[in-house]
């Protein structure tokens, strides 16, 4: 059914397109879905991705920027020469596909364990940290006046959000309390410069090929704030997938990340990055607790949710390694 709808949709804006084939859902919760499909075209198939909230799920929850904002940000990133898919079409009510957009499909890998271990990425790995630094600088350098409407965050607000969320679970976690204390005591305050922050800049949201990063995905958590947040988040231990001595995504050093960032004309602040790494580690822990909550209360009673709930202790050990390292 979706192929017929997509076929009508693409015919309206893609000259020569005669339909679509191979539509398959890649991921989807109740409110947001990602589909892959090929546009049938006389010049050969065009790989495409649909990201949408199905009809009836218009509003985006809490922290989400919204699909329209995501489309605009991806297009801005693409136009600025950053690795980002081209947005082909923003859905209209006539499409009857809900809200969202269609973008070019970029081939490559997003699964961290493959990127960190497979031979085909061996040549890319040593350059990834630097490259990721350059891309972050590009994102932070996008003209703020051209951005869609986004929520504005500060470290102080983020601490308060995490505190409230943690308390809502009603499950005592002394290590999270310790982290919240540390964050309050080390809160650097508002950053001198407020920029676009990707908000979820890590493995899973980077399409990587043997030649390096090909696309940055998932701008759902984009906001305005301290650019060092993105650099701290990409260093969170959980995104190293076992390669714990390579803080940047398990593939590189902070020095390489900062060098790439600075080569693109921006200054990194290692102290603030460390602060955001602690914040990010706690955030991941709180997200795991949220998964447990949704597993227990929500309609999605999946084993995966339950098991992510049991990953909150990994955030605790990572917080202790950051805040109370043991003498070796």
């Amino acid at each position, binding site marked *: 059914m979706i192929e017929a709808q997509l076929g009508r949709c693409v015919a309206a804006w893609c000259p020569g397109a005669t339909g679509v084939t191979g539509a398959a859902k890649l991921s989807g919760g109740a409110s947001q879905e990602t589909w892959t499909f090929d546009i049938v075209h006389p010049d050969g198939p065009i790989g495409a991705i649909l990201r949408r909230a199905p009809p009836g799920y218009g509003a985006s929850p809490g922290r989400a920027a919204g699909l329209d904002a995501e489309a605009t940000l991806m297009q801005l990133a693409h136009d600025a020469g950053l690795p980002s898919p081209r947005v082909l079409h923003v859905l209209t009510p006539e499409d009857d596909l809900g809200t969202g957009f269609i973008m070019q499909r970029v081939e490559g890998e997003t699964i961290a364990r493959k990127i960190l271990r497979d031979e085909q990425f061996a040549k890319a790995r040593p350059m990834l940290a630097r490259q990721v630094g350059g891309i972050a600088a590009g994102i932070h350098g996008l003209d703020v006046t051209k951005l869609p409407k986004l929520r504005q965050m500060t470290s102080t607000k983020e601490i308060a959000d995490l505190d409230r969320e943690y308390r809502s679970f009603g499950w*005592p*976690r*002394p*290590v*999270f*309390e*310790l982290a*919240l*204390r540390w964050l309050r005591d080390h809160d650097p305050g508002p950053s001198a410069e407020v920029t676009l922050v990707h908000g979820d800049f890590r493995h899973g949201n980077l399409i990587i090929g043997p030649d390096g990063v090909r696309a940055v995905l998932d701008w759902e958590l984009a906001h305005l704030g301290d650019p060092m947040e993105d650099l701290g988040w990409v260093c969170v*231990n959980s995104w*190293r997938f*076992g*390669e*714990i001595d390579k803080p940047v995504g398990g593939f590189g050093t902070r020095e390489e990340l900062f060098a790439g960032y600075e080569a693109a004309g921006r200054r990194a602040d290692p102290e603030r990055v460390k602060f955001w790494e602690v914040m990010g580690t706690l955030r991941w822990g709180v997200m795991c607790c949220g998964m447990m909550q949704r597993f227990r209360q929500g309609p999605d009673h999946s*084993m*995966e949710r*339950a*098991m992510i709930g*049991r*990953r909150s*202790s*990994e955030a*605790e*050990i*990572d917080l*202790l*390694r950051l*805040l*109370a390292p*043991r003498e*070796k």
Partner: protein
Amino acid sequence: MQDEPTPVELTKAVADFLRHDITPMISGHNAFKLRVAINMLDLVTRQLTQQQGSDAAESARLAQLLGMQGSLFDLNRELADRIGKGELDLTTPGLSEHLWQTTMDKLAVDQPNYAAYKRELGSKGG
């Protein structure tokens, strides 16, 4: 008194059956889900084996740190409150050791293959 086999023996038997007899027959997304299911049973087995000992030791440490008795939940809530208020911190004798031991005991059940856990286990010789 409940009869044998024990819960641990039962969960182990199910996990072994899924791992050895069913895994080779399943592919695709269901293979992924099967792996998650096996991991889940293994976690339950570890918890059933280890929880009694680690809970007792945690209770004893908490009673010592806080100077009070109570259920494990209440003691943890009290510790969390006092850390939150700043009444206890990393300079408090025994606090860091307690948080570390408690966290290591959780990882031993939740994710004994987590790299940071294995590193800490190695550096302290267990």
